[in-house]
């Protein structure tokens, strides 16, 4: 999607959506500090907006932001080397290892989630927040049935089971399934 935004806010919010997660994990991979990574990514994305006139193409912009983030990370690392403020304690090692693994794992999961359509992702997010389907439908301006379908699509795409998801998705769907099956066949035993 080519985009030369000369002041279009929607375009920027799309860019933000597309790039935020990937940039965050990219930064984290370099500096292993959550808050700092968040800040860096935020600032660099903001600078995309501030310099929007300067970019000639999407590729241009992508290159810019990755380089900017990377340089900011290196600056941070250099700063840390000089101003180390905590002693390194061996007992923290195990937890740090866990943190690293965890971030890496979650980045893989998030990559898949970023591949969902915005609607699917929105439904998924709201489901994770335990918002009932009726409200999700209202918020997005779609039917409740569509909410179930979107959620089902999301689960299928992820190929990954999450607690709480299966419950809400399946009973209604397979009730539908059952109704359809009953309508189309004469005898229940014909199915198997």
């Amino acid at each position: 999607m080519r985009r030369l935004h000369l002041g279009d806010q929607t375009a920027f919010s799309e860019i933000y959506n597309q790039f935020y997660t990937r940039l965050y994990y990219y930064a984290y991979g370099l500096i292993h500090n959550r808050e700092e990574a968040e800040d860096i990514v935020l600032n660099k994305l903001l600078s995309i907006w501030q310099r929007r006139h300067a970019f000639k193409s999407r590729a241009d912009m992508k290159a810019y932001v990755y380089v900017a983030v990377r340089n900011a990370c290196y600056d941070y690392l250099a700063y840390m080397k000089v101003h180390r403020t905590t002693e390194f304690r061996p007992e923290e090692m195990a937890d740090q290892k866990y943190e690293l693994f965890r971030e890496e794992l979650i980045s893989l999961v998030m990559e898949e989630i970023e591949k969902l359509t915005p609607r699917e992702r929105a439904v998924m997010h709201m489901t994770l927040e335990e918002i009932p389907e009726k409200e999700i439908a209202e918020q997005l301006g779609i039917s409740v049935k569509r909410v179930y379908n979107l959620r089902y699509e999301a689960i299928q795409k992820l190929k990954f089971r999450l607690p709480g998801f299966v419950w809400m998705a399946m009973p209604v769907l397979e009730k539908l399934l059952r109704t359809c099956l009953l309508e189309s066949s004469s005898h229940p035993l014909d199915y198997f």
Partner: protein
Amino acid sequence: MLRAYRIPHINSILSMQEVQTIPGLIYKYLKDDLTRTERDELMDWVNQSPENLSLFERLTDREMIRNAIREMLDIKESMWEKLVAKAPELQNEPVRRTYTKPKYSVAAVVLVLVLGAAAYFIIRFRDQEPATAGNTPSDTSSQKPIVAVNITPAGHHASLTLPNQSPIVLDGSTRDTISLAAGVPITARQPHTIQYALQAKEQYGRDSAGPLHILSTPRGGLYNIILPDGSTAFLNAASSLRFPPVFTDSVRQVFVTGQVLFNVAAIAPSNGKKIPFLVTILNSNGEEKTTIEVLGTYFDVNAYQDHALLKATLLEGSIRIYDITEKNNRKNKPIVLLPLQQAILDRRGNFTVRKKVDTAAVVSWTKGSEGVFNFYNLPLQEALGEISRWYNVDVLYKTDVSLLSPIASILPRNAPINKIIEVLNLIYRPDILFTLEERTIVVSRP
């Protein structure tokens, strides 16, 4: 503003290779997408140290992952707010602030619960049948549904019976080595596996296998075993495996009831001749029925006899199935299965082969509480059989269910039993009513 600073040279201390490969493998594990080599690689890493095992368990905690995803999506949105604060001209275009605060949802959830309980209460009131023994006074409370006392999803329990000895209970508190009069050391590994010492090549030369050992699981119990040839067997609830402590060089034969997932090692100790592995199914009388011949493969045997007598599903390798029931006296014509195929032997003695089954669904039980019940087009009776074995509950049929449409549903295996009952009721309303009385699921017409 205080921050937690991390030391940048972490990378030089931890193995960078680990960080690059292990999370990827774990992710594939969670998606059920590992090749056999990858699985072995992951398991090797897990077994390297208790620290790795603990890491693995923490990283495969789906609740944690669910929260992490939610957190990440939240952060993304809140970061946008921050950004807009710095560049107010963007204010008109919210990213996707599409949901209101959770307080609304809490009210909704509470409402649903109360309604559900009231409906439940009303239905029970209408039920004319005298309740079976054990109805506690709390049943008549309209505030909450029956509390399932001590009914938990399956855990790791089993018992090992050695010849001429009473059964040894295995439940994760087993001591590390169970030594044996015959001298074969058995180690209890982790909370759910026992391992027989790998037998040396020379030991395969014996004539007879000797008396068999029996590993059996009760309802609600799962267990793993590593056999003396390195093959592994994973037993589902209410299953058993009879095997010799030392295999001979002519054949490795084991006997199965219930459901077992095998991962058979190819063994060719002397002169390169492969020793076949035979799995013989025993029926309820302990008679030998079908036998499956294996040459180093990964397959699941379901011999619960709920519906079909046997369902053998092949994941990798190849197997031959010999049926020695009276109907198919032609012992020389085995059924050969290729990966992803499933052979079903029905009660009438006929074999059917399905070409491409969803193997992840078939072996989902091996994930324990992480897995699901994959009831795809399954007769209700069979599904209830699975549920009864998993939760260690009985099923009382007060009405015939064989003419009902089959279930098509996926339910998590770590769900509390009440939830399962709720879903069953939802599916079969208004034809059938499911209730839980003490440790029995009662199936009746409302």
